[in-house]
């Protein structure tokens, strides 16, 4: 399993007839009702849709934080259903960088400590861990806040720490669930600029958003409604010639 070597238009994510059902019987909620979708290496995808349409549910499946009720999900060619607990942990650690709407920094742990975490679980030696974490913080412009705890940082700064943490292990896939949902417009612009850079760097990016100008940055916009894809279009700023259905 070497998805790091994936290049070009090879689909890195491949979903076929994915269903997700929460609860059972009368209380069952059909959050996803048959999603079929391919995302290629280097794509920059925005996912839109009304609240409750299943965006987060889809994102959690993509990031291997949850397992689908039915359907197949191939990540870099391998079916995640066949992977064991430790292999999934490894994928989350090395290949996926997750940015949450609610930041999800570990409380009472410094910004540097938070950014180091993925490297800790990747068993990177202490000294290298420190340099790489500081580099990542520097990239999001927070090198001078390395020793601050989350509660001492503003919302925008916390989200930048979370982005540094998502990127520190150089994942091929960056997933962001409404990353700017809790931020003011200035912070939103900073973070969008950051995603732009990442996209130009060739990372695969999937962003959930409600905001049109955030979606406009992406190369491709997928719209969900009631658990199904209702539109999937290429935006004007896509660098890729090929079309997609």
């Amino acid at each position, binding site marked *: 399993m070497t998805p790091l070597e994936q290049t070009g238009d090879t689909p890195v994510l491949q979903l076929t007839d994915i269903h997700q059902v929460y609860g059972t019987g009368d209380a069952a909620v059909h959050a996803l009702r048959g999603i079929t979708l391919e995302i290629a290496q280097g794509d920059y995808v925005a996912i839109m849709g009304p609240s409750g349409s299943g965006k987060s549910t889809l994102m*959690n499946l993509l*990031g291997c*934080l*949850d*397992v689908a009720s039915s359907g197949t999900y191939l990540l870099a060619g391998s079916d995640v259903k066949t992977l064991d*607990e*430790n292999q999934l*942990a*490894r*994928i*989350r*650690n*090395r290949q996926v960088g*997750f940015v949450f709407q609610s930041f*999800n*920094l*570990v*409380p*009472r*742990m410094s910004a540097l*400590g938070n950014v180091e*975490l*993925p490297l*800790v*679980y*990747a068993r990177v030696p202490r000294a290298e861990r420190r340099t790489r974490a500081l580099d990542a913080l520097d990239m999001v412009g927070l090198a001078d806040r390395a020793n601050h705890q989350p509660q001492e940082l503003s919302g925008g700064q916390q989200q930048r720490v979370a982005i540094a*943490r998502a990127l520190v*292990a150089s994942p091929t896939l960056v997933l962001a669930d409404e990353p700017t949902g809790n931020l003011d417009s200035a912070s939103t612009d900073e973070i969008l600029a950051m995603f732009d850079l990442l996209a130009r760097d060739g990372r695969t990016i999937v962003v959930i958003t409600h905001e049109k100008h955030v979606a406009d940055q992406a190369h491709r916009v997928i719209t969900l409604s009631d658990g199904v894809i209702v539109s999937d279009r290429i935006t004007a700023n896509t660098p890729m010639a090929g079309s997609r259905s």
Partner: protein
Amino acid sequence: MILSALRGINANKLRSVLTLLGVMIGVASVILLLAVGNGSAQTVNSAISQLGTNTLTVRPTGGGGGAQTAASTGSTKQITMAVGREIQSAKLGHVRAVIPQVAGSLTVASTTASETAISVIGTVPAYFTVGTNSVATGSSFTTEDVTTSAKVAVIGQTLAAELFPTGSALGQQVTVGGTPLTIVGILAQQGSIGFNDPNSVIIAPISRIQASFTGYGAVSSLTIEATNSDAVAAAQGEVEIMLNQLLGITNTADEPYTIINQGSLLQTAATSAASFTALLGAVAAISLLVGGIGVTNVMLVTVTERTREIGIRKALGATRGAILGQFLAEAATLTLLGGVLGVAVALIGAQFPITGTLPVILPFSIPLALGVSVAIGVFFGVYPAARAAAMRPIQALRAI
């Protein structure tokens, strides 16, 4: 691992302090309570060995110095040296020796120092063969000394040191209530069993003390040495019959003396000391349990509180093993630290008498208390964390 555990502990100071305190108090109280029980048991046991388990004490009742009111007893006689000698020469089946004693409290002085209200005992050489009343240096006085009312004495170690701080007391002269006595022996060190220091005493031939101070009337007590510790009760019966004959007592319901079987009193005390230790042990076990429940509570709350953190860590790629390792290291470090502090507190606390007895720490209680508290802390620190770590990341993340 330890470093990150310390960081985790530092990040949750309040609950860390609570856990630490719970373990510390639990461990310290178990060790100390058992030590108190053990200490009192040892005091009783040393008293037993000091008195000997094969002795009886006959003490006249009513009137100081053994003077009796004859009215109701039908007796006009007192317990004297002569009575003691008669019992001795009767060769009763279960009696080995009869040791008469007279006692007083007098000022004892050397040329350089003087001590008031010192316990002065007049007795016979057999006194030094009972219990732990042996002579350590020099020798006891002899039967000859008793016959001749010799001016000699055996002295206790504390008194010897007080009167002769610079050199040995052996061969030196002391004046006891004005009478000069030569010290021929020094008693072996004795454990304290009451308020009086048994090492601050001077012992002289009974005839000498009678001649100089008490007169030749009643003695203070007769110590009866039985042939062995199982013969004490039989000896008591024999002595009682003989005494009643000698004293001409007709009304045995109102004897002018009591016979005290100290050995059996102390055996009873030893038995109750043992059950006291068991009781304290039970209290200690309860306190350890309560401490454990406290720790458990803190740990459970902590893990519930930190389930979200576990979710974050899993989302970042932590394996179940890594999460477990983290919580194990934290719980183990905390409870071990608390346990070691508890042992330290117990060791310090055992230096001070508690309700009159000096606690003596039972060695096995330290690993027992440490082991149980660490096991409780680690189990309840790790078990809920293991459950949280087994969740899918999104489940743990949604936990509030």
